[in-house]
């Protein structure tokens, strides 16, 4: 976006249509599923000192909300997801799920990773059954039946008996979503799950995710660095600062639901985008982005 555009024509990013405001009021009324209080994470560095990756991060997510977490690189957004999943210990603060503190990883918090983490030795069905079998609550037959329903939900019933290496990247992530949802987690953590996909597949996966989310009682915490993705998916966006990671803002996305790709060009969407852009990449920082370079072409041979 260049300065020449009529930016002043965009509405305030906070301005909400009545039905959007109503939706947020309802969302706030829903019970709090996830509460994060004063999360701190220190990493030990080589010389024995510590560096603070997360500093006093607090937020609440309500039932069936999609909350996106964005921020510049190095803001610790992946660390947030990993701490919530229990894969890393926090140095301070607490994570409450349904009001109870969580310790270590557990099936109540599903996770979809950026890399492909399907078990290569299991078929799609067996992958989705994995969590169901671990719980020991299902017989093999009911677990398989349930797994097939989840596979149907992500539209991959034709590939139920395929092995992961036979699937495309987008399909693998859809199976990963089905696998994470099958044990009925309270929250679904998604750590840049579509980051490795090409732009077209990513757009497709985003709309799949919205469709799936509508059918399932799950709260989604979605980590991304893609502003458009965040606005397209989220009810609210948690913006983090870098070095150390602090909460900059918890922004309500005024773009009405249901979301469609056409909304990318709507004024509300663009207003939200501009606001995020300014938060994450302020104009002052952009000026510093210019790298001093030596000219490698003949004087006068200009392309711009």
């Amino acid at each position, binding site marked *: 976006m260049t300065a020449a555009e009529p930016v002043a024509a965009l509405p305030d990013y906070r301005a909400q249509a009545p039905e959007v405001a109503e939706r947020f009021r309802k969302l706030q009324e829903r019970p709090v599923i996830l509460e994060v209080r004063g999360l701190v994470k220190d990493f030990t560095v080589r010389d024995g000192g510590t560096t603070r990756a997360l500093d006093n991060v607090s937020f609440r997510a309500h039932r069936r909300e999609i909350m996106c977490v964005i921020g510049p690189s190095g803001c610790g957004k992946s660390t947030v997801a990993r701490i919530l*999943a*229990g*894969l890393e210990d926090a140095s301070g603060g607490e994570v409450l799920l349904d009001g109870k503190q969580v310790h*270590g*990883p*557990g*099936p109540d*918090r*599903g*996770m979809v*990773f950026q*890399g492909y*983490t399907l*078990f*290569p*030795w*299991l078929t799609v069905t067996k992958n989705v059954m*994995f*969590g169901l079998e*671990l*719980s020991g609550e299902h017989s093999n*037959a009911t677990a*398989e*039946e349930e797994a*097939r*329903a989840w596979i*149907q*939900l*992500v*539209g991959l*019933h034709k590939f139920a*008996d395929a*092995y*992961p*290496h036979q699937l495309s990247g987008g399909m693998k992530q859809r199976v*990963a979503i089905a*696998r*994470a949802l099958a*044990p009925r987690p309270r929250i679904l*953590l998604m750590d840049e799950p579509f980051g490795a996909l090409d732009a077209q597949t990513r757009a*497709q996966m985003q*709309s*799949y995710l919205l*469709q*799936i989310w509508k*059918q399932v009682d799950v709260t989604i915490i979605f980590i991304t660095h893609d502003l458009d993705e965040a606005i397209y998916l989220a009810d609210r966006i948690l913006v983090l600062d870098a070095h150390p990671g602090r909460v900059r803002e918890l922004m309500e996305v005024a773009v009405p639901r249901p979301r469609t790709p056409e909304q990318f060009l709507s004024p509300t969407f663009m207003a939200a985008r501009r606001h995020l852009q300014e938060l994450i990449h302020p104009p002052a920082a952009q000026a510093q982005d210019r790298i001093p370079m030596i000219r490698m072409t003949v004087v006068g041979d200009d392309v711009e």
Partner: protein
Amino acid sequence: MAAGRRDWLRPFGELPRRRGLTLRVLAFVLPLGLWCVVSYVPFIWHPMIRVTDPGDVDWMTRDQVVEGDAFRTENQAIAARGGHIARGAPTNPVFLPAPHEVLRALVTGFTTPPARPDEPWLHEALLHSIGIIFWGFLISSVIGVPLGILCGALPSMARLTEPFIEFFRYLPAPAFGALAVAVLGINDAPKIAIIFIGTFFQQVLVIANTARRLDPALLEAAQTLGAKPRQLLWRVVVPGIITDLYSDQRVLLGWAWTYLIVAELIGVSSGITFFINQQAKYRAYDRVFASIILIGLIGLTTDVILASIGRQIFPWVRTSRTGWLSQALQRLKRGERRIPVAAISAEVTDETTTQTTANVAAREAAS
């Protein structure tokens, strides 16, 4: 596909199928060809002379193989005296038989009775050796594979055992020969023990390293699905490394074979080692070569069979063509599943689900 000349030298370049096959054949043809050249071309090497007519040399007899230099010196002396010179054809030393002789020994090896009644037949000697390898490798694997997996998966286990194993693996297995005989007697037990010592310590370290190479993201994913430590071990670590572990075992089995000859010299010499030594005593080097080649063939055949079995039992490996066994298994499985699948799809009539599926299908069709 026309592959240019420079494709031969491109690192990790892909070989056309035919060229790959040719090279594979050449891998055996080249050394064999070298052996043929040395054996059949009279002016290459052939340092000895096989006497066809001793002439006036009183110490030579017909068919005796003598040093070329000695033969020529004698003939010069006789020629100077004006006597009847000896005649002979150049030949190789007795320890390098020609390929056709070895081939004949291979063919007749199993039908030739032993020189003395108390000696084993060739197949008896081979079976005995295979038995030693089998037991040594089996006992080593029964302890070494689980220990290796545990060392790889549990840092505490690795710290506790690996330093000692690291030390022990540098001790040459044959050094324990005398000890093994003292403890286990002179028959097969000490030989099995040497194979065990030669294999076990490497095995633990190799398999531990394989286990450590498991993608940690798989372990994390399993944990977020609720896997407890024991479930991680059985449901992620073991299946996650099983294909690499299988390859490791194939390599280790090869190592076990290399300890065979040393092991069989311990106590009462037995098996193929005893057989080879006896043939060497009888100067039947064609049969010595045949026995050595048989060991190689047994090793190679075992490995090819194991590789083929590997393709059958690990259908998820990317490179594997679907083997006959897994095809049959899948057909069996599909047959079993046909009914439950129909039952499920009949049950899923929930509107929302079908709607989503329809959407997804439509999108998939559109894309």
